[in-house]
C-alpha cells in the first residue's frame, strides 16, 4: 500500500479567514503574530544589544534587506530581473555625498539622494524598458561596472579614494533605528501597493505584458513607475551607507551589492517581499560569522545557497507560511 502526504488547513486558519477573527483575542493573535513578532524581535535586538559590532551588522543587514526588497519588487511583480542592484545603491551613495558637499543636512540629503538617485537610475534604464527579454538584466549588470571604471579612470568624485569627510547622521539612535523603520515601512507599503489598481497592473505586466498591451495599457509607463520605486529603495540604502561610513567610494558599486540581494531573495522567497528582507537578516550575520574563513567564506556561502535551493526552492517564507497555516499528515491510498 502506498502513502501520500495530505495537507489540510489548520482549524484556526479557517476560523480567522473573515470577520470572525475579531471575535477572539486568540484569533487576532494568530493573525497578527507573523507580522508583529519578527518586528518586535528585530527592534528589541536593535535597542537592547549594546555591542556596536552587532549594531553595525544589523544596520548593514537592513541596507541589504532594502536592496533585496527592491530586487524582489521588480523581479517578483513586474518581471524585471535586476542583476545590478549596485547601480541604485551606488548612484544613491554618490548623490548623498554630493548633496552633503553642497551643504545639505544629512537627513535632507538622504531624501534628496533618494529622489535624485531614483530619477537618475530610471533615466539610465529608460532605453531598455520598452524592450522585452533580457535587455534589462544585461543593462543593469553593466552599469555598476561601467561607473566604477569611469570613476577609477577619470578620477572624478575623488577617484579611487572616494568622496571623504561626509557628515554622519545626526544621532547614533537615528543611525541604528532609521533604516529598520524604513525597511519595515517599505515592506508594508509595497504589499499595500500591490493590491491597489496600479499594483494589479504591475503584477499583470510581469505575468503577460502582451495581454496588458491588448488591454490598452502602455506597459513601458508602468515599468518606469516600478523601476523608480525600486531605484528609490536602493538609492536610499546607498545614501544611508554613505552617511554611515562618512565616505562614498567605489565599493558602492561593488558586485556584492548586486549578488547578495538576489541570494537573500532566493533564501527568503521570491515574490513575497517580506522574504527577501528576512533572507538578508539571516545571510548577512552568517557571512560576517564566516569572515574568519577568509576566501573560503564564499565556499560556505555558495554551498549554503545551493542547499537552500535544493531543499526549499520556494524560499523560507512560503515554507513557514505553509507550516503556519496547514497541517500535514500521511494517508494511505
Amino acid at each position, binding site marked *: 500500500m502506498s502513502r501520500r502526504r495530505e495537507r489540510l488547513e489548520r482549524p484556526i486558519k479557517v476560523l480567522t479567514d473573515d470577520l470572525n477573527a475579531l471575535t477572539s483575542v486568540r484569533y487576532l493573535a494568530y493573525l497578527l503574530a507573523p507580522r508583529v513578532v519578527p518586528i518586535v524581535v528585530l527592534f528589541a535586538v536593535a535597542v537592547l544589544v549594546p555591542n556596536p559590532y552587532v549594531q553595525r551588522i544589523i544596520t548593514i543587514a537592513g541596507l541589504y534587506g532594502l536592496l533585496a526588497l527592491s530586487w524582489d519588487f521588480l523581479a517578483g511583480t513586474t518581471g524585471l530581473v535586476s542583476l545590478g542592484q549596485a547601480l541604485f545603491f551606488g548612484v544613491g551613495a554618490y548623490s548623498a555625498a554630493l548633496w552633503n558637499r553642497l551643504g545639505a543636512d544629512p537627513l535632507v540629503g538622504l531624501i534628496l539622494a533618494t529622489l535624485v538617485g531614483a530619477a537618475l537610475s530610471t533615466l539610465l534604464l529608460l532605453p531598455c524598458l520598452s524592450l522585452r527579454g533580457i535587455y534589462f538584466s544585461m543593462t543593469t549588470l553593466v552599469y555598476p561596472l561601467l561607473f566604477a571604471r569611469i570613476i577609477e579612470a577619470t578620477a572624478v568624485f575623488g577617484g579611487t579614494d572616494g568622496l571623504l569627510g561626509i557628515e554622519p547622521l545626526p544621532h547614533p539612535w537615528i543611525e541604528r533605528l532609521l533604516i529598520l523603520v524604513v525597511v519595515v515601512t517599505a515592506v508594508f507599503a509595497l504589499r499595500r501597493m500591490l493590491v491597489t*489598481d496600479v499594483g*494589479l497592473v504591475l503584477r499583470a505586466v510581469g505575468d503577460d505584458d502582451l*495581454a496588458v498591451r*491588448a*488591454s*490598452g*495599457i502602455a506597459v513601458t509607463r508602468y515599468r518606469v513607475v516600478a523601476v523608480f520605486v525600486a531605484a528609490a529603495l536602493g538609492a536610499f540604502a546607498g545614501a544611508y551607507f554613505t552617511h554611515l561610513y562618512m565616505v562614498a567610494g567605489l565599493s558602492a558599486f561593488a558586485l556584492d551589492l548586486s549578488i547578495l540581494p538576489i541570494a537573500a531573495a532566493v533564501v527568503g522567497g521570491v515574490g513575497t517581499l517580506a522574504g527577501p528582507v528576512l533572507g538578508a537578516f539571516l545571510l548577512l550575520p552568517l557571512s560576517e560569522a564566516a569572515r574568519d574563513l577568509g576566501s573560503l567564506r564564499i565556499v560556505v556561502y555558495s554551498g549554503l545557497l545551493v542547499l537552500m535551493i535544493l531543499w526549499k526552492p520556494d524560499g523560507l517564507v512560503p515554507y513557514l507560511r505553509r507550516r503556519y497555516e496547514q497541517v500535514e499528515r500521511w494517508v494511505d491510498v
Partner: protein
Amino acid sequence: MGGRVRADPREPLLRIANLSKQFGGLLALDGVSLMVPRGATVGIIGPNGSGKTTLVNVLSGFVRADSGSVRLRDVDITDRSPEDIVGFGIARTFQTARPFHKLSAVETLIVALCSGRVRGRSRGGGFGSRAATAMDLLEEVGFERDSAVPHQTAAALPQGYLRRLELARCLALDPEVIITDELFSGLSPSEIASLLPLLEKLQVRGVSLILVEHRLRELFRVAEWIVVLHDGRKVLEGSPTEIAADSDVREMYLGAEV
C-alpha cells in the same frame, strides 16, 4: 447645416486596404482589402497558415504591416501601438487565452479598466468602483456573481471561462470593433452555444465584430459576411449561404460540416 445628421448604421467603420506582410520568405498577407460597416459581423475563414492570425495581429497593432493601410472612421491607425489601437476602439482576443495567472478574473478586468480609454469612467464612484464594474462585466459574460469563480486565480479556470474572460476584457475596453481569434476553438458545442447569445447581444448594441474562425457552422449562424483567405490572399467573399455553397470552400474544409 441645421439638424443633427444621424449616423447611417451601415457607414463604413473599418477600411483595410492592400495589407501585406512578409515573414522571411513567407508572404503571410498579400494585398488584403476589406471593409467592415458599423455594426456588421464579418467572419474570416481559411485553412491553417492562410494569414488569419497575422491579419488579427496587424489590425490590433501587434505586428507591423509591410504595406497597406487600416483606417478606423477617418483615422489612419496603421502601425499604431496595440495600446493606442485599443484607445481608438478596437479590442481583440487571443487564439490561446492569455489570462494573468496570478490574478483573478475580477482583477484581470480591473487591469483592463485602468486603460486610458475607460480609466476616467469608473472613477469617481468611490472605493471599489472598478471592482464593481468588473463584476458587472463578468456577470454579463456568464460568470456567477455570488460564486467563488470570479475570485479564483485565472490559471485555475476552465477553457470555457477563459474565453468568456477574454470577451469580458474586450467589453471592459468599450470597443467599437471586437476582433476574435478562434474564439470557439477548444470549446465543447454547449460552451459554444452559450457564447453565441453573447455575440448576438454585442451585435444588437452596434459593436462591429470580426470573427476569425475554424468552426464554420457556428460562425455562419452569427456572421452576415464571410471572407475566405488562402495563402495570404482574399480569395472569396460573400454571404454565408453563398460561401457555404461554394465548391472550393467545401473542398478546403472537407470533413468539416458546412
